[in-house]
C-alpha cells in the first residue's frame, strides 16, 4: 500500500465571515481584497517544508495539483512546486503531479514538455496526472467552452502520448492542436513514458479511459471513503466489464486524515481547521460546479441519479457537528490505532492501493501540520504498507525512479 502526502495549499487565514460575505471560494473571491501576497510568501515556504518533511519521514509519494482562482488551493502551476521538490527530496519519494489540467493548454504540447523536464529533473520519479479538471478551472477561470472540455482533454492526451512515444518530428492535425512539427526536447526519462494517473470526480468516461489505457484512477473528493464507495464500486465494475484485473494499485482515493495521541485530542486539535475547510474551502455555489455542457449527457444522467455528499457535509457543518463528520467518514480522525483501523477498513472496502493522504487541512497551522504528518508517518503508515501484500499484486504504475519500498530509517521507526 502506497501512502502519498497530498498538499492542496490552501489560504489559511480567510476571514471568519468569509462564507457569509462572499459568493465563492473559487473563481470570484476578490483577489485584492482577500489574497495577501505577504501571507502567500510564508504559506509557500510552509507548504514546501511540509512536503519535504514527508519525504524525510518516508512517505512513498508527494502529491501536488492544479487549481485556478481558488482560495483552498492556489497552486496555479503544480509543475513549479514539483520542480522545487525535485532537488530537495533525498529520500526519493515519487512526485505525483495530479495533475496538469490538459484542456487548458494550447498547445497541449506544453504539458508533454514540462512533464518530460520534471521526469528528468526528478530522475524518473514523476507520475503524470491527467485530470479533466473542474468546471470552475476549465470553463470559468480559463474560458474553455463547456462542451469542448472533454474533446480537448482527449485530444491533449492523445497528442502528449504521441509526443512522448512517436519519433519526432511529426505533424499533428487535431481539432484544437494543429502543429507542423511535434518534436519535444527533452523526452521523459521513464520509458515508454511516466505512468499516467487519472484524477476524476465520478465521470463514467474517465473510468473507462483508465481501464482501456491501463492508467490508475484516483478519486479526488473531499467527502471521504463512505461516499467514495459508490464511485469506486462503479470503477471496479467497469474494470470487470472491460476485462481488467482487480489490482488495487490501479486505484487511489483522497482522504482527510487527522492523527493525535487520542481520539479526544484529535477533536480538540483539529476540529477548528476541519470546520474551516468544510465551511469556507468548500463554499462553492452549485451553479459554478456544473456549467451546462461540462459533463456529457451520459455522465450528467449518472450524476443526477447519484446522491450528493455535499449536502450531507453541509448539514453536518450547519450543526457544527464533529461527530457527524467523523462518523460519515468525511475525515478520519483519532488516535493512531483508530486512524489505522479506519484507513484499513476504507482502503479494503474501496480496494485501493494508493492512499492520497490529505494531512494539511484548511487553516491548520504549520506546527500542527508537521505534527500530523509525523504521527501519520511514524504510527500509521508502517501498519498500512503490507495491506495488499498477501494478494501479491505488482504496482505497475509507480514511477520507475522512485523508491519502491519503505526507506530503511522509516522501517526502523526513526
Amino acid at each position, binding site marked *: 500500500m502506497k501512502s502519498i502526502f497530498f498538499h492542496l495549499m490552501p489560504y489559511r487565514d480567510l476571514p471568519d465571515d468569509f462564507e457569509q460575505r462572499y459568493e465563492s471560494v473559487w*473563481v470570484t473571491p476578490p483577489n485584492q481584497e482577500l489574497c495577501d501576497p505577504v501571507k502567500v510568501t510564508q504559506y509557500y515556504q510552509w507548504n514546501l517544508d511540509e512536503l519535504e518533511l514527508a519525504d524525510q519521514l518516508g512517505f512513498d509519494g508527494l502529491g501536488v495539483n492544479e487549481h485556478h482562482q481558488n482560495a483552498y488551493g492556489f497552486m496555479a502551476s503544480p509543475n513549479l512546486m514539483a520542480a522545487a521538490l525535485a532537488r530537495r527530496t533525498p529520500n526519493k519519494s515519487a512526485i505525483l503531479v495530479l495533475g496538469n489540467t490538459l484542456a487548458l493548454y494550447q498547445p497541449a504540447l506544453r504539458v508533454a514538455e514540462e512533464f518530460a523536464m520534471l521526469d528528468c529533473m526528478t530522475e524518473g520519479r514523476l507520475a503524470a496526472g491527467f485530470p479533466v479538471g473542474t468546471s470552475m478551472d476549465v*470553463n*470559468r477561470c480559463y*474560458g*474553455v*467552452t*463547456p*462542451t*469542448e472540455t472533454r474533446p480537448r482533454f482527449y485530444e491533449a492526451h492523445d497528442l502528449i502520448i504521441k509526443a512522448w512515444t512517436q519519433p519526432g518530428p511529426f505533424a499533428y492535425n487535431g*481539432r484544437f492542436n494543429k502543429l507542423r512539427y511535434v518534436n519535444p526536447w527533452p523526452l521523459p526519462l521513464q520509458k515508454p513514458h511516466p505512468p499516467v494517473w487519472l484524477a476524476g470526480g465520478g465521470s463514467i468516461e474517465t473510468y473507462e479511459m483508465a481501464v482501456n489505457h491501463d492508467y490508475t484512477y484516483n478519486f479526488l473528493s473531499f467527502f471521504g471513503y463512505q461516499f467514495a464507495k459508490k464511485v469506486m464500486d462503479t470503477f471496479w465494475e467497469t474494470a470487470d466489464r472491460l476485462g481488467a484485473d482487480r489490482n488495487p494499485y490501479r486505484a487511489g482515493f483522497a482522504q482527510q486524515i487527522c492523527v493525535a495521541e487520542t481520539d479526544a485530542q484529535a477533536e480538540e486539535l483539529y476540529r477548528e481547521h476541519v470546520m474551516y475547510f468544510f465551511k469556507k474551502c468548500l463554499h462553492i*455555489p452549485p*451553479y*459554478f460546479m*456544473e*456549467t*451546462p*455542457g461540462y459533463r456529457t*449527457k451520459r455522465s*450528467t*444522467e449518472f450524476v*443526477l*441519479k447519484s446522491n450528493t455528499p455535499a449536502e450531507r457535509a453541509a448539514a453536518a457543518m450547519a450543526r457544527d457537528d464533529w461527530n457527524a463528520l467523523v462518523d460519515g467518514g468525511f475525515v478520519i480522525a483519532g488516535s493512531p490505532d483508530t486512524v489505522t483501523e479506519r484507513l484499513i477498513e476504507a482502503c479494503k472496502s474501496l480496494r485501493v492501493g494508493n492512499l492520497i493522504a490529505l494531512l494539511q487541512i484548511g487553516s491548520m497551522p504549520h506546527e500542527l501540520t508537521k505534527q500530523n504528518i509525523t504521527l501519520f508517518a511514524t504510527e500509521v503508515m508502517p501498519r498500512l504498507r503490507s495491506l495488499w501484500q498477501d494478494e501479491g499484486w505488482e504496482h505497475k504504475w509507480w514511477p520507475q525512479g522512485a523508491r519502491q519500498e519503505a526507506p530503511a530509517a522509516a522501517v526502523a521507526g526513526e
Partner: protein
Amino acid sequence: MQPDESVLELRDGRFKIRTLQAGSGDPLLYVHGAGGLFWDPLLDALAANHRVVAPEHPGAGESQGLEYVEDLWDLVLYYNELLDHLGIDRAKVVGHSFGGMVAAELACNNPERVERLVLIAPIGLWRDDHPVPDISGMPPERLPELVFADPQGPVAAMLPRPDPNDPEALFRASMTMASVLQFIWPLPDKGLSKRLYRLKAPTLLVWGTEDKLVHPAYGEDFAAAIANARLELVEGAGHLPQLEQAERTIGLITGFLS
C-alpha cells in the same frame, strides 16, 4: 393557433430538429433564444400573414445534431441547409437574444437569403461598460430580475421553468443551455461586429428599456453598424418584450414586416 409540430431530419438523419410551423404566406424563420422554443403570441400574430417556421436549436430540448455544428460557421451553414431543405430561398427572419445573434450572422453571411430582419434584444456584441451577465453563473432565482421589467408580474410567473425536483427536466434545461453556450462561451462576442457591414436587409431592432441582461446600449451599437436599421425601445419591458409588452412589440414587428 395550434402550430404543427414535426421533426425535420437533415444530413442523413444527423440532425433531428423539432420544428413548429403554422400559417401561410411569405416564409418567416424564427430563431429562439437560450430559454428554448415555445409558441408564443408573437408567433401566433406572425402566422396570421406568414408561413412561420420555428426550428429548435440543435441540441436544445429534444433536437439533435449539436456535435455537427462545432462553431458559428458550421451553424450558419446548417441554417442554409435547413432553408434549402424547406424549399425556402429567401425569408423574413426574426431572432430573439441568442437567436438574434444567429439570425444576424445568417443575414451577414447570406444577405441574399434574408429579406427583412427583426432582432429582439440580440446578443453578439460586447461593451465593457455593460457586460452581458453570465446567466449560467448565478443562482437561477436571480434570472427574473435580469429578464423582466417586473419580476413579480404575471408574465414572469408564466414563464416555463424546470421543476427543481424533476431531474429529467433539469437535465433537459441544462442540455439546452449547453447547446447555446457552445456558441457564446465565455463571452458572446464572436466577431459579429466585423461582419455587420455585410447585412443588407432592412432591420428592425426591438429592445425593452428595462433589459438588464442585454443593455439597450447594445441596440444603439447594432443600429449604428447595420446600414438600414431602426431601433425601437419598448417601455415597461425587459429582455422579453414580446411577452412583457406583447401588444406594442407585436404591433411594431408586424407593422415592419407587412
